[in-house]
C-alpha cells in the first residue's frame, strides 16, 4: 500500500524549473532513496511532500491526505529533517528534544533517543558547541522524536565521519524495523545501496530511473567481468558456448570473461567440469556509482 504518491509534480522558482515532472510512490515500511546530482530537485521534491512548498502542478498525497489542506494532521504523523536548518545557538540538546517532543501527541522518550543517537554526553551542551556531526544527529533525533509514521530525511549523513555514518545507518534500519517508512535523500551511493529498498534517481527535475539498487545497476550497466588464471589451457569455445557469456579475452596468462546474469556460477561450473582450477578468480561488477554516472552523466560527489 503506497503511503506517498507523487504524480507529475512540477515546481518553478521564477523562471527556473526546479522540478519538471516527478512521479513516484513510496510503499509502507520501505526505505525509499532519492538520488541525484546537486540541484536536481531532490530537496524541492521532498519539501513538496512535506507540505513546505506549494507545487505548481501535479499531485501529492501523503497517508491519503493532502500535505497542504491536511497539514495539521500530517505534521503529527510525518517527521522531517531539513537539509539546511539550524537551532538557536544557546539551546541545549536535551532542551531541544524535550521542546520538540512536547509538540506531539505520542512522542518518543527524548532521553532514550539522545542515548540512541550517541548524544548522551552532550545532553547539556549548547547547540553552537556541537560538532557538525553532532548537530546532524540532533537534527535526525528531532525528526524522529514525534514517533512519526513517515520520516523524511534530507541529506541524512552529510558531514558525519565514516563511523558515525555507519552508526546512523544502523539507527535508520532500526527505525524502519519498527515500522516507519523512510524517505532518504542522499549523495552517497554506499548509503543508498546499503539502506534503500528502492531508489528514484532524479536528474534535472525528472525521474530518470526508479528501481531497487541491484535492479538499477543491472538495468543500466548489466555487464560483469570474471578474471582468472587457468591451471590448464582453456578452449575459448567452452566459455563462449555459455548463454551468459558475451566475450572472452586473454591478457597475459589471464582470461577475462564478460557477460551478464549469473556469470560467475556459469564460468566456475564449466571449469570444474573440465577439472580446471581458476586461480586469482575475481568478479568485477558495475556498482551503483557506474549506474549513477550512466544515468545522469555526473560523477557522484563523495
Amino acid at each position, binding site marked *: 500500500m503506497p503511503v506517498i504518491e507523487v504524480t507529475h509534480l512540477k515546481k518553478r522558482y521564477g523562471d527556473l524549473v526546479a522540478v519538471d515532472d516527478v512521479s513516484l510512490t513510496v510503499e509502507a515500511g520501505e526505505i525509499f532513496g532519492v538520488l541525484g546530482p546537486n540541484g536536481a530537485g531532490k530537496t524541492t521534491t521532498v519539501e513538496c511532500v*512535506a507540505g*513546505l512548498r506549494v507545487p505548481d502542478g501535479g499531485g501529492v498525497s501523503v497517508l491519503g491526505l493532502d500535505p497542504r489542506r491536511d497539514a*495539521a494532521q500530517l*505534521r*503529527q504523523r*510525518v*517527521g*522531517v529533517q*531539513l537539509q*539546511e*536548518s*539550524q*537551532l*538557536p545557538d*544557546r*539551546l541545549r540538546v536535551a*532542551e531541544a528534544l524535550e*521542546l*520538540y517532543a*512536547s*509538540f*506531539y501527541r505520542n512522542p518518543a522518550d527524548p532521553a532514550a533517543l539522545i542515548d540512541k543517537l550517541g548524544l548522551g554526553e552532550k545532553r547539556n551542551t549548547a547547540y553552537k558547541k556541537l560538532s557538525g556531526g553532532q548537530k546532524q544527529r540532533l537534527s535526525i533525533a*528531532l525528526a524522529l522524536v*514525534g514517533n512519526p509514521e513517515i520520516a523524511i530525511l534530507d541529506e541524512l549523513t552529510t558531514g558525519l565521519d565514516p563511523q558515525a555514518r555507519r552508526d546512523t545507518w544502523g539507527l535508520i534500519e532500526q527505525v524502519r524495523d519498527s515500522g516507519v517508512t523512510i524517505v532518504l535523500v542522499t549523495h552517497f551511493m554506499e548509503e543508498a545501496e546499503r539502506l534503500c529498498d528502492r531508489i528514484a534517481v532524479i536528474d534535472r527535475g525528472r525521474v530518470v530511473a526508479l528501481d531497487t539498487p541491484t535492479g538499477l545497476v543491472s538495468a543500466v550497466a548489466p555487464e560483469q567481468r570474471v578474471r582468472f588464471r587457468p591451471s590448464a589451457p582453456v578452449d575459448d569455445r567452452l566459455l563462449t558456448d555459455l548463454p551468459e557469456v558475451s566475450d572472452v579475452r586473454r591478457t597475459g596468462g589471464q582470461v577475462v570473461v564478460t557477460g551478464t546474469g549469473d556469470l560467475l556460477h556459469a564460468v566456475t561450473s564449466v571449469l570444474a567440469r573440465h577439472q580446471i582450477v581458476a586461480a586469482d578468480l575475481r568478479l568485477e561488477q558495475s556498482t551503483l556509482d557506474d549506474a549513477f554516472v550512466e544515468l545522469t552523466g555526473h560523477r557522484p560527489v563523495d
Partner: protein
Amino acid sequence: MHAFRQILRIEARLYLRDLPTLLTIVGLPTMILVVLGLIPSLREPDPNFDGQNFVNYFAPSLLVVTLAMVGVNTMPMALATYRERGVLRRLATTPAHPGALLAAQLVVALAAILASALLLIIVGRLAFGVPLPEHPLGFALAFVLGTAALLALGLLVAAVARTTKAAQALAVPLFLLTMFFGGVYLPRFLLPDAVARIGDYTPPGVQALLDAWTGPSPQPLHLAIMAVIAVTAGAGAAKLFRWE
C-alpha cells in the same frame, strides 16, 4: 497554546542565558541614571525644565534606550536570525506553528522592556527622589502605545529584510534615529525646536512619556499617532512577513 507555552519557556530561558545582553537591556538606562544622579548640579531645580531638575527631566529619555535596543534592534535581529538559520522553517514541519516562536519573542521583549522601565522608575524614586509618574494611567497608556509602535516597526524590519545582514542595515539607522529623536544622545532642550517637535511623533513618543511622568497628562494627538504607527507598521509586517 500548549506549544506556545513550551516555546515561551525555552525562549525566556535562552534570553536569561545571554547575560551580557540581558544586563545591558535591562540595566543600562538605570546605570546612566545613577551616573547622572551622582552629579549634584543635575539634581538642582532648573528653570530650563519648568523648575524640575535634570534627572527628572531626562528619565523618560532613558526609557527610550531600552525601547530602542529591544524594539528595533535585538528583537528584529533575533527573528531575522531565526529565519535565516531555518529555525522557523524547521518549526513549520512540526505541529507547532512558527508564529508561536514570533509571539514568544514579542513576549520576552516586552518583559525585558517592562523590567527595565520598572527598575528605572524604582531606582530613580528611591535613590534620587524622582517622583513616580504623576499620571499613572496616562503614563501606562503612553508607554504601552510607544512600545507597541516600536515593536511594530521592529517587526516590519524583520519582515522586509531577507537576510540578517539586511535586517542589520535597517535596524542600525532606525536605532540611531530613535535614540536621537528620543533625546538620548542630546537632551531635548539642546535640540533645535523643530527636531524636538519631530521627536514628539517618532516612536516611542518621548514627549507623551514626559508629560505623563512629570506634567499634567499626555496629549491625545501624541498617543493617537503612536497607535496609528503601531497598527500600520504591524499590519505591514503581518502582510510582508516570510517564514523562510
